[in-house]
């Protein structure tokens, strides 16, 4: 596939992610921060997000697995996840966290467990999507092309 085509695909793919709510405007902010001095900024940040989130999800799983669930701790983790997901623009994950926190306040274990599942799902989904996105970008770059700037016209 030639560069132009790849770039077209990238743009379409990215747009779809926004349309489907996987990503929001914050992701665009990240992209705009990327420049020559930091050509891999987005990838780096997102990778950081992945590592951090997986840790948080593990902690959450463990915390909810306790006989006596410490909801404060659970809430703290969820809050953290909410913050980081919102910072990179992972909208669905963030929304999942918001719902999660509400149930934490209610101290509803069942609902919390469901929320955790939900959040995990969203997380893995967006992770896949982003990884696919980065791969596309890499291909373009490898082929000598440049990454088109996203314009959120829609």
């Amino acid at each position, binding site marked *: 596939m030639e560069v132009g085509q790849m770039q077209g695909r990238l743009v379409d793919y990215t747009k779809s992610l926004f349309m489907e709510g996987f990503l929001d405007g914050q992701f665009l902010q990240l992209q705009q921060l990327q420049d020559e001095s930091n050509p891999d900024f987005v990838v780096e940040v997102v990778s950081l997000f992945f590592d*951090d989130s997986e840790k948080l999800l593990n902690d959450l799983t463990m915390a909810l697995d306790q006989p006596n669930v410490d909801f404060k701790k659970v809430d703290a983790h969820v809050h953290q996840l909410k913050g980081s997901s919102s910072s990179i623009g992972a909208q669905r994950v963030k929304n999942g966290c918001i719902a999660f926190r509400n149930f934490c306040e209610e101290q509803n274990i069942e609902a919390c467990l469901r929320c955790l599942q939900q959040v995990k799902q969203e997380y893995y989904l967006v992770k896949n999507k982003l990884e696919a996105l980065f791969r596309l970008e890499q291909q373009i770059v490898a082929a000598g092309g440049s990454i088109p700037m996203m314009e959120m016209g829609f």
Partner: protein
Amino acid sequence: MNSSSGKGSMSTASSSAAWKTGDVVPDKFPAGLRVLVVDDDPTCLMILEKMLRTCLYEVTKCNRAETALCMLRENKNGFDIVISDVHMPDMDGFKLLEHIGLEMDLPVIMMSADDGKHVVMKGVTHGACDYLIKPVRIEALKNIWQHVVRKRRNEWKDFEQSGSVEEGDRQQKQSEDADYSSSANEGNWKSSKKRKDDEDETDERDDTSSLKKPRVVWSVELHQQFVTAVNQLGIDKAVPKKILELMNVPGLTRENVASHLQKYRLYLRRLSGVSQHQGNLNNPFISSQETTFGPLSSLNGLDLQTLAATGQLPAQSLATLQAAGLGRSTAKSGVPLPLVDQRNIFSFENPKLRFGEGQQQHMNNNKQINLLHGIPTTMEPKQLASLHHTAQSIGNINMQVTSHGAQSGQNSSLLMQMAQPQARGPTLDSTVGHAPRLPSSMGQPILSNGIAANVSTRNGIPENIRAPGYNPVSQTSSMLNFPMNHTSELPGNSFPLGSTPGISSLTSRRAFQEEVNSEIKVPSGFMPSYAIFNDLNQHKPQNWELENVGMTFDASQHSNSLQGNLDLTQSVLVQQGFSSRQVNGQSRSAAVVSKAVFSAADGTEHVIAQNVNQHLDSLLVDNTIRVKSERVADASAANLFPDHFGQEDLMSALLKQQEGIAPAENEFAFDGYSMDNIPG
């Protein structure tokens, strides 16, 4: 992370430095603004760093609050602004906020994914200058420099204001300026201090609607009436209802008075703590100091007892103060104390204090501001900020000492009163000198406490200084009493005041101060200016060098030597206030007073001033007299506030003290005083 801590680290360092020292904003500004960002979330941290870099700021990032504090402490002048997350594992963001406010007095922006009203309100009440909701956009970061500018302007204004009676307008202007710009800022005309007070009230009530009460403009006259009423009633008994009755102003509500009283108390505390505003030096404080000084030595058991009790004023000093009454111009230590008061007065955000003081106590005070006759440094705002302040205060104090006479007497009593309750409170209130001032009880007790604290720390106790529980430094180095109940340990703010009047603290301070060798003869009983003394002792040579005045100050102090007089304390206070700022670094050991407060001594003088202010506010918020303002004392010993006016703060602190306005008992959660008096 970049090491943006050094001022000169960036190419625009010079510009930033220039910008620091004055109101002039270099062309490149805000480029090069030194930002410290703290967040335990690595993703956010990385994003923020990148965004800030894109804004051309110098960024240092840090994922732990403790680390951030260390960095800030090591390099007091290394940062212009701090951005911190609210929820962090090792320390609550608000706690960090308090520490910073007390110790370094830097503007702090809170941020969180949590946008609940309650949390945002907490930010406000704890003194954050802004609150950002995550995810943070770069546009929001582009404007953060405004907080730095605003703070400096406010500091300058305080300083300037203290110099003249007409400051009222300035204050207003100041506050107005401060009002808009920060999204989280409330529109207090008094500027942040007021805001904090309001918030304090509100916070306590957890009722934001209370903030909506109609704002009364506290004109000079009104404030004077207020102060008169307060003095008539006595700080202890000054309850809003009675004050309202005494004032007899139609249309004024008890609530108005209550909130004003709160602020006033804060102000007093601040004054005693560490003359946050350098500018305040000259004021009325001096006059009161004079008296205090004189009497200090005698400490006849005047209210000093109370003071002593509170730990702030050594009984002796109080007595002396009282004896000196208004008429005595103890001229002992050359006024350091008065200056302090003055400063406090000024620092008290508004001219009110000044007025109040001027009227009552400081009768002499009118000249206050420039009592620094002897002091070479003129309180030019700019200069004052750094040197003058100290010098002035010193000078003022000297001057005042003579003129006070009467005031000090008053102050002492006030101080006494204040001391008592305050003992806890504002450690820095540098009540020391003021004894009469106690009002700032915070400050004063602090002195005593500070001194005591310092002493203690020196002795090992000082740490408590935070709430300068004013150790009744009295006469003996027992300063340590700090009643400092403040909960917060006044980080560093507790001016190592050790300066508690003459008392051993001074001497002890000296010991601590090693560096300072302050001759500050801490008036033995008077520790009112706790922090101040410490600083004085310590810094004396240093800080005061800046101003020359300081030096003289010291000299006078020493001469007075422990007379236990407030004079020393006052001077000490002044010095301390300044020196504390500066000295803090020095007297680390001694200054322990505010622990944190003084730690900033390194030169965070201005920080201290700021802190003090900030802190006071935040402190008040907690009802603990955190004497943040006292932190001022922390001012690095190196320079009295190179940028800021340490003097100003001191002066304000002094002034406050002088005013003898009832130490914000309520505000400062001093041992003796509980916030119960605060209008409800």
